């Protein structure tokens, strides 16, 4: 909750808001974390930071054998293509002259050359597009896989800090940005850049004074581009933010439609939406107008330069100082000299956003997993006995240097194999933290967590996960059938085992009542499960995994009373011969424990069997139990 970004400029409007009967602005916006800002601020060529360059290098290196010949292909294509105007110029200057002198063969020859250049350029173009596209897709594929695997290796602390939203956008929209960039490049922009270079050379060779006019046009074009790039980065960001706000309002209305209608929020919503819709329109209109100036501007500069060339060149042809064919070729070249300019402006924009995406991806790839796999793992005794020890464990989510209070100051705990321990205490007392340390989602800041005497940091990932399983409150389900979701606990399990696991925790009754029973797709209509049902599936999954240590973090909180009763009965048998850690608000769940630990501020303040603690009568647990028992019937 400490993550609200309280900025100075939002506080400034606080009084206005209080006074206004219809306030529109709320404070503590979080929607755009600074590092998620789409970056396109600078005009000019984007530069790559070292990490991003390294990443790009490592992605392209495997393909260098194909890339080098490809460069020759694209240059060859460019040259054959640009031979066109030159050949037409030759037809005018030489072919017609020869034909007038009675020799048609020059025209035939030059026309054939033109035809040939068309065919060769077409073939080379096709080769280039296919090969380049294939390499590009392979690079993206490798990047996706590498990134996905890396993110999966990173520890839960990273995921909690970084948030799932950003992980998702690195792997989806940021990679998509690269794909778009690739498509734009394929879409002719590589050749556009090449064109400008080649044409500049050709123009300079054809006629120096005329070339000077063309090159001089670069000046105003560059200024125009600078202006556009600077303005557009601001405007584009506004449009993105505006549409995001429209979408949030829309989706929230849909998801909360019951509340919207029950509380007559429609008019207010309509007002809010009208404003967001208007903002979006305005931001978009600004972008349109920017283009309305920039693109005709480029056209105007090009047209002016063309007219100037026509005048100057025309004069010289009339004076006999220049061949007509050269002028014609020149005019034809000029046309494709100016027209790609605006494309290149767009291209630079997309290049900038893709370098930004690449940088963001590189940063994630440079994250080191804070819960690393041991290089030389120590084996657990087989089968594991499930003895859990916490020795002088200290832990906090926020480093003390940043003002974070340790959640667990110094905790010692010994849980013998087979014991069922219930953790009780207020929110923030450290119950879930203990669970996360025992399942090694985090490593302690100091002290050790040991399983059967082995430091968890020395246990191999695979072995640890077989031995320790944690079931959380949310009961996350993956797409696929209910059976798939249970089998997640042990992928090699047979269908019978899956069904037996569901039956053991009492989940089979509702599952069989689903449209397709165990084969019901949980993401399809009719397959959407209630919170309680999801918990039952998650529970079956854990049961199927059959770990030595089972951790239940509010794992039965959403069950109704009869179901919970069934689950508790199942638990009594399930937990008999394994170590278990139970976190629950409901005392009925706590009752099945052999031992209750009451936590406050990361310390154990009460420790004993449930009946001991209750009969002691003085502690927190006794008080809680008393008020609960009163509410019973």
């Amino acid at each position: 909750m400490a993550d609200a970004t309280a900025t100075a400029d939002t506080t400034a409007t606080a009084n206005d808001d209080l006074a206004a009967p219809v306030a529109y602005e709320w404070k503590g916006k979080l929607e755009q974390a600074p590092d998620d800002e789409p970056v396109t601020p600078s005009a000019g060529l984007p530069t790559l930071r070292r990490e991003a360059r390294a990443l790009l290098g490592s992605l392209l290196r495997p393909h260098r054998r194909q890339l080098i010949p490809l460069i020759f292909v694209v240059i060859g294509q460019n040259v054959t293509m640009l031979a066109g105007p030159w050949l037409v110029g030759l037809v005018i200057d030489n072919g017609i002259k020869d034909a007038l002198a009675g020799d048609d063969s020059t025209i035939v020859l030059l026309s054939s050359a033109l035809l040939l250049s068309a065919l060769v350029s077409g073939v080379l173009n096709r080769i280039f597009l296919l090969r380049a596209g294939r390499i590009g897709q392979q690079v993206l594929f490798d990047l996706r896989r590498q990134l996905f695997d890396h993110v999966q290796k990173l520890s839960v602390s990273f995921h909690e800090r970084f948030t799932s939203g950003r992980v998702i956008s690195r792997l989806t929209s940021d990679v998509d940005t690269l794909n778009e960039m690739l498509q734009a490049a394929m879409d002719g922009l590589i050749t556009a850049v090449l064109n400008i270079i080649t044409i500049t050379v050709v123009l300079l060779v054809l006629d120096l004074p005329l070339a000077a006019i063309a090159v001089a046009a670069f000046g105003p074009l560059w200024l125009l581009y600078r202006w556009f790039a600077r303005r557009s980065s601001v405007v584009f960001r506004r449009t993105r933010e505006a549409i995001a706000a429209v979408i949030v309002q829309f989706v929230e209305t849909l998801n909360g439609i019951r509340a919207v209608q029950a509380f007559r929020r429609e008019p207010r919503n309509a007002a809010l939406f009208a404003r967001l819709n208007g903002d979006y329109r305005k931001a978009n209109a600004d972008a349109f107008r920017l283009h309305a100036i920039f693109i005709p501007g480029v056209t105007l500069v090009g047209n002016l330069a063309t007219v100037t060339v026509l005048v100057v060149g025309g004069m010289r042809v009339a004076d006999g100082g220049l061949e007509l064919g050269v002028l014609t070729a020149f005019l034809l070249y000029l046309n494709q000299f100016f027209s790609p300019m605006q494309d290149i402006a767009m291209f630079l924009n997309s290049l900038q956003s893709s370098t930004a995406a690449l940088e963001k991806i590189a940063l994630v790839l440079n994250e080191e997993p804070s819960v690393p796999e041991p290089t030389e793992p120590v084996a657990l005794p087989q089968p594991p006995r499930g003895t859990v020890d916490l020795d002088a464990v200290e832990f906090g989510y926020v480093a003390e240097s940043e003002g974070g209070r340790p959640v667990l100051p110094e905790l010692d705990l010994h849980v013998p194999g087979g014991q069922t321990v219930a953790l009780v205490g207020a929110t923030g007392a450290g119950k879930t933290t203990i669970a996360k340390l025992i399942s090694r989602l985090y490593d302690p800041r100091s002290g050790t967590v040991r399983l059967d005497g082995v430091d968890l940091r020395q246990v191999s990932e695979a072995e640890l996960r077989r031995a320790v399983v944690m079931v959380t409150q949310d009961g996350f389900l993956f797409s696929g059938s209910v059976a798939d979701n249970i089998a997640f606990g042990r992928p090699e399990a047979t269908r019978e085992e899956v069904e037996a696991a569901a039956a053991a925790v009492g989940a089979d009754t509702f599952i069989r009542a689903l449209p397709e029973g165990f084969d019901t797709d949980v993401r399809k209509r009719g397959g959407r499960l209630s919170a309680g049902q999801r918990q039952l599936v998650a529970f079956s999954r854990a049961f199927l995994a059959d770990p030595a240590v089972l951790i239940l973090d509010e794992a039965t909180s959403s069950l109704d009373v009869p179901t919970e009763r069934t689950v508790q009965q199942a638990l009594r048998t399930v937990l008999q011969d394994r170590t278990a850690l139970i976190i629950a608000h409901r005392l009925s769940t706590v009752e099945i424990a052999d031992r209750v630990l009451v936590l406050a501020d990361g310390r154990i303040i009460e420790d004993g069997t449930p009946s001991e603690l209750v009969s002691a009568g003085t502690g927190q647990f006794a008080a809680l139990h008393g008020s609960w028992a009163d509410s019973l019937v």
Partner: protein
Amino acid sequence: MPRQRAGLPWFIVTNAPAEIDPIIGGEPDGPLGEDQQKVTAGSSNTVAGPSTTQPGADAEFDPASHGDPEGGGLRPLLRLVPWVRPYRGSMIFMVVTALGAMLAQVLVPLVIQRVVDGPIADHHTAGIWPLAGVALALGVAEAVLFFLRRWTMASTSLGIETDLRRDLYDHVQRLPVAFHDRWASGQLLSRMSSDLSTLRRFIGFAFVFLIANTATVIVVAVLLMSVDFWLGLFVAAVMIPMAVATRYFENRYRREARRAQDEVGDLATSVEESALGIRVIKSYGRRPQMLATFTGNATRLRSAELRKVTTLASFFTMLDAYPQIVLAGVTFGGAMGVAHGTLSLGSFVAFVTLYLRLIWPLASLGWLLAVTQEAASATRRIFEILDVEPSVVDPPRPRELPSTAQCAVRFEHVAFSYPGAASPTLADIDLEIRPGETMALVGATGSGKTTITALVPRLYDVTGGRVTIDGVDVRDVRLDDLRTTVAMAFEEATLFSASVRENLTLGRAETSEADIAEAIDIAQAGFVQELPFGLETRIGEQGLSLSGGQRQRLALARAVLGRPRVLVLDDPLSALDVNTESLVEEALRRVLGSTTALLVAHRPSTVLLADRVALLVDGRIADVGTHSELLARSSEYHDLLAQSSHMEVSRG
């Protein structure tokens, strides 16, 4: 897709500058710049943000989105007329300016012809100036007309888009909950964002150029034939297939892009699960399996993308090579004509340049038609929503609710079935809640408790019998009055991305500061004062996140705000911890004492807030009585509520 390619052979590009930009990304928007992608890529149904897409659900409701782009015809576009009408002046202006700019461009070669045949042939340098003046005027006119069109586009197409989006939103808000049960929000969202963007592009661009380019093609063809009839006829005849080929490639590419987009969706699902389910994955050590799934998806995406690459390669090769081949023919024919005196040199140069001006408008016609088809299916998808009639509406002759201090709520033979459900959810419900009484609803999961609560404020309408308040059928009352009288708290506390205050009042104007303070007090939601900006703090998805218990207390505060005469609470205390629960119960008891209330309860402590309890079994009322009466006589009731303590404890 076939935006003008910058690196195209010179002949295509010649004519491009005026027109290519709008296809390229002249209209940046979309959270992920999706439009740009869509525009360059020609298709894609990128829905904004992975969290809102539900790739799996698409096909179920939405045959149009996956159907053949050729199907359906262009008729649906006519339905846009009412929205376009206010802008018809600017639409005509845009067509005229586009046409003007095109003509200015086309005329330049004719000027060059004059220059070559006149001053240059005569070596008369002074003669160049007037013609250069004309060329300059044309060049400036082109740029200015171009500017005017784009400037107008900003108000026109965006105006139409904004109006449509507003109407769509207002409509969707009015549609009943039953509609929203059927439509995933991702479905509606894609209509509101990508389909509307498609329409905007159609209106501002495709529509205008469909007219302007057709006219240009005709004009240029006529000019070509006027320069040299047979050569002109030859060019027109061999170039027409370009338009057909463009359309073919465009449609093929669109299909492939859509398929790739589906793969992107699947990949996004896999990514989403890997991020959201990270604890489960880690907990079971399933990284290898997740990577295998992801690799499978990424492989399929790669093949889909490669299909696109292949199509693009063929298409661009065609676009490059074909006109240049024709050019070789034109050059040969023209040069021979000049050599044999049938054509002037100036006419030859003009012919070649004019020919170049023909390529883009012609090739683009195919593309424009494809865009138009896409717009037609986007329109169809939008009207699928706009055509749904709101079924829960104000009665034609509304009755007033008696303004008694406390009112009675009665369910009379109420039946309810969800559309398409095999068996009714509720059958023959008879239940009376007396003025000021609190009635608890108890029943197993799926027995219909939540459905009953939703019938009172008409989130659903009964399918049989009736619900009355003080004897007046709720369907005979204006919705606004009904929902002022009845307030609800839902089990899943919905919060909006807005301030705490906004979340409490939800925009109801009649609430005072005192009401808000009282509601916060009753719901034990004093924590809001501790938030960084107190009541003004933004909460919800885009703001501060609150715990389940906090959310629930806010939802409760929202319901009791302004002391509604009927209170419907769907298990309002389920997410509270024991301490808070008892505090909230105490405060709630005060409110319930003076209000008629219906209260869904799962726990004995909640039931104790009620005067009487109705036991719901399989959509029927099995028993009604006080808590102790029911405990005594109903084993089913006992089974639902009794958590027995197994501990042998002597309580001190």
